[in-house]
């Protein structure tokens, strides 16, 4: 167990690689009750969120969600989050545990009149159930074709008298859902999923596997790959920023980055051969010059090779560029690769 965002969280249950493979090949369940859940409502909620977050909220129909950023005035990332439109004028925001207070304070401070902002994190928990057997599992849980929501969408269900919201989202690159529920139902739901999931090989998964799975997909981790000093353009996540919008916090800075080009970019790399796994803060070199630093690194259980992400100077950020990773004074060759680093074999 380790402290994580104010919570005590398990790094692993049966082992990182074992849990990782369960998610890639069958089913894994992560406790995500530590994540923050905010409800934003009121007549102007959509317009207000549209100027507060980077992605295009106005494109969301009821029941749809999208990945987006909350930026500071300099375009730096306060948090990355998913916003779901749960009603005509009601939205659910799922944010990082370590950022709950900061996000909420920022939103409260910038709240427009007529908008209600509620932090329901203490009353609601969540689990992420991820892996190719997820539909079969819900067939078992609901006793019929579950008709799970489409990718990025959310809908309410009842599982054995427990009211839940199920979103077809995740942080692993596998098909999967995130289920949000009342805290009093947490233990019952957790045990129920493990029991019904047994026949599919479902395993409880910790933070360790969560990290290896998301890193193979090059999904960023706030606090490591994202920070208040980095903006989404530098992180290569411009897809989740709608620069066509006339107004949103941080827009001017992002346009400037877009115009002038980012000084550094978040790249993904693979080690060229076996060796020690890359780790955060190791230095990255190109042609003998230090060009940046690793922000996330591990041994990829799916690829069985060292992988990572890091910011390097824009001139050294092209796909295919040879890099060297300095590990305990010795340099090991690596190559910048296209994201994601792992692609499902169909």
């Amino acid at each position, binding site marked *: 167990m380790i402290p994580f965002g104010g919570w005590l969280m398990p*790094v*692993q249950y049966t*082992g*990182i*690689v074992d849990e990782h493979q369960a998610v890639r090949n069958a089913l894994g369940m992560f406790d995500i009750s530590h994540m923050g859940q905010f409800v934003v409502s009121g007549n102007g909620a959509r317009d207000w969120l549209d100027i507060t977050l980077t992605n295009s909220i106005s494109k969301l129909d009821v029941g749809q969600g999208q990945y987006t950023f909350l930026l500071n005035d300099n375009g730096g990332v306060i948090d990355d989050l998913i916003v779901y439109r749960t009603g005509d004028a009601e939205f659910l925001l799922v944010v990082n545990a370590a950022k709950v207070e900061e996000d909420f304070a920022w939103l409260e401070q910038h709240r427009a009149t007529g908008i209600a902002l509620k932090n329901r994190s203490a009353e609601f928990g969540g689990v992420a159930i991820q892996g190719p057997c997820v539909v079969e599992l819900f067939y078992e849980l609901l006793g019929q074709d579950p008709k799970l929501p489409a990718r990025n969408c959310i809908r309410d269900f009842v599982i054995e008298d427990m009211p839940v919201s199920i979103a077809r989202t995740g942080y692993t690159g596998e098909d999967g859902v995130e289920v949000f529920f009342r805290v009093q139902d947490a233990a019952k739901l957790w045990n129920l999923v493990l029991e019904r999931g047994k026949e599919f090989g479902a395993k409880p998964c910790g933070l360790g596997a969560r990290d290896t799975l998301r890193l193979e997909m090059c999904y960023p981790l706030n606090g490591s790959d994202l920070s208040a000093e980095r903006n989404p353009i530098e992180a290569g996540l411009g897809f989740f920023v709608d620069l066509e919008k006339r107004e949103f916090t941080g827009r001017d800075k992002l346009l400037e980055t877009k115009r002038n080009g980012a000084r550094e970019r978040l790249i993904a790399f693979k080690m060229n051969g076996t060796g*020690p*796994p890359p780790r955060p803060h190791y230095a990255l070199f190109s042609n003998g010059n230090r060009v940046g630093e690793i922000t996330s690194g591990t*041994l990829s*259980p799916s690829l069985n090779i060292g992988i990572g992400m890091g910011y390097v100077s824009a001139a050294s950020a092209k796909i295919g560029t040879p890099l060297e990773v300095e590990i*305990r004074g010795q340099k090991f060759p690596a190559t910048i690769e296209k994201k994601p680093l792992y692609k499902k074999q169909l």
Partner: protein
Amino acid sequence: MNVPDNLLYTKTHEWIRREGDNIRIGITDHAQAELTDVVFVELPKVGTQVAAQAPIAVVESVKAASDIYAPVKGTVVEANNALTNNPALINTDPFGEGWIFALKIDNADDLKNLQSAQAYKDQIG
């Protein structure tokens, strides 16, 4: 957890087997279980002279890199090259095939500073 009675132990989870003037060193079953999935081992070079408690090898799991310390002062006389291709031996056989290195010890009296199996059991609870 397996803690063989015939070995000595350090506070930092190394085990030590006496073999005449030499000692063989690895990490305990408890340590490998905590680290899980060992994926890389940086072995010491044979001939290296090392002080007691100095870091001499590195064991890396998916989770983290961990230093391995010399339990006493000595000279490295063997390193387990089998770990280069199969680092998981540390997980599957921590007290056997998963040994990491052997030291020729300078002074056998230094071994008195190491703890017994019972003391190590008490340490890990």
